[in-house]
């Protein structure tokens, strides 16, 4: 690894493009400090796919259960916290019963972490675990495990994350297979995961889906939205911030928005700098020869 204290390049124009990554990151982090200490309070825009997701959740039949299958893990908490918290609060606020399912080994602990936050909010108070929502443990196998859940939900888990047999959880009396599922919310920190639930839940069982994807995953999810299995898209923390706003459950997303704005603008500026250096150096070399 090169020395951070040395700027690469011989001429000024070359040095412009020769900063070590340490300084690039340090400048971005410094910029993030500003709005986190003094929130600017910039407005938020919403997108049609988030509005669609919100509406689809509200329209979910109340006699059925929403299944929130999740590939997000603790390692993705910083990006997931906004969306997970907003989503759980939205579901509880509107008395929509839901079951959380973990598709990675450390998703159960992410769910526990989020649950601890949400049960302390206005939406979480007065709600009862096992009646209003439940949390399953880890189901290995990725895509191929989804039809197993669809065919025999109790067989897929036997007990919840806390070891309570599913037969002892009231909510599980109404959830045995795909016919009892109102909607699938499929969360993933992979932008390409969405193809798997579409292939399984929608194609094979006709259950429609909300894609809660990593930021940027909208491109792939949008190829299935709105008429090809996906009813709406929540796009990472960006979508989470929108959901906070739309659903009236304000949280940490709004404060993060300002910081993101500055960080993105700084990145764009660095790309411009890099290109000025590259083309400037090339022009100079061309001129010299």
């Amino acid at each position, binding site marked *: 690894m090169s020395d951070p204290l040395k700027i690469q390049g011989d001429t000024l124009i070359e040095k412009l493009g020769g900063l070590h990554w340490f300084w690039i990151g340090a400048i971005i982090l410094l910029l*993030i400090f500003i709005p986190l200490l003094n929130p600017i309070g910039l407005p938020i825009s919403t997108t049609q796919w988030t509005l669609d997701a919100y509406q689809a959740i509200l329209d979910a039949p109340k006699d059925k259960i929403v299944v929130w299958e999740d590939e997000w893990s603790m390692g993705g908490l910083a990006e997931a916290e906004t969306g997970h918290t907003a989503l759980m609060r939205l579901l509880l606020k509107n008395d929509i019963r839901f079951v959380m399912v973990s598709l990675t080994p450390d998703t159960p602990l992410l769910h526990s972490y989020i649950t601890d936050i949400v049960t302390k909010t206005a939406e979480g108070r007065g709600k009862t675990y096992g009646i209003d929502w439940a949390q399953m443990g880890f189901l290995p196998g990725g895509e191929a495990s989804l039809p197993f859940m669809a065919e025999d939900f109790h067989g897929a888990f036997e007990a919840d994350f806390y070891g309570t047999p599913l037969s002892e959880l009231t909510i599980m009396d109404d959830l045995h297979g795909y016919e009892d599922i109102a909607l699938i919310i499929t969360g993933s920190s992979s932008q390409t995961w969405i193809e798997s639930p579409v292939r399984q839940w929608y194609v094979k069982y006709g259950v429609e889906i909300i894609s809660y994807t990593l930021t940027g995953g909208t491109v792939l999810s949008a190829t299935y939205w709105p008429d090809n299995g996906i009813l709406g898209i929540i796009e990472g923390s960006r979508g989470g911030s929108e959901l906070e706003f739309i659903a009236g459950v304000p949280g940490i997303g709004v404060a993060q928005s300002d910081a993101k704005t500055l960080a993105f603008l700084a990145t764009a500026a660095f790309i411009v700098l890099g290109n000025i250096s590259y083309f400037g150096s090339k022009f100079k070399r061309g001129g010299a020869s």
Partner: protein
Amino acid sequence: MADALTAWIVLALWFMVASWTYKDNPLFKIATVAAVAGGAANGVLVNIDNIYLKALIPIMDGTKIWLIIPIIIGVMFVFVFNPRYKWLARIPTIFLMGISIGAMITGVMSAQIIGQIADTASSLTGGNLLNGLIVLIAVVTAILYFTYSKEQTGVLGNLTTLGRYFLMASIGPYWAGELAFHMSFGIKFVQIIIDAIGL
């Protein structure tokens, strides 16, 4: 007090990892080893739970005694450590691959082929015709880009070049998304610093 202590521990952990960006150092390696150990231990614990609930209980109470078969198949993975019987470790791998591929391809025709063609065709009605035509051209040229039986020159070359441009247009937002994803961790890092210092 306990919260403050935790905040400082958390800050120290993040700094240990972030310190690598200045220079590789033992603190970074210590953090890496701790993350590997934690991930491995959790993987073991969660999966013991899974096997116990779904297989061992039904086997022991006699309701699904045949589940001993997948357990034996799974145990066959240990043969990866034995040069003589290493080929036996292919058996569980074959089950994983076969079942996964089998489950996947049976959904491909509808989701990835017919559904996509249907949406391409239907986008030519009802909405903006020009946009619908652009989508159609993009789909066709992108598919042609992924053909291999002819060198991509002449007319085919022009079409596939156009296809590649559309592919690039679809890739750009992923890059933006990935950047945004990572910035969330930058924001969290700064928040952790603010929390620990008490700003």
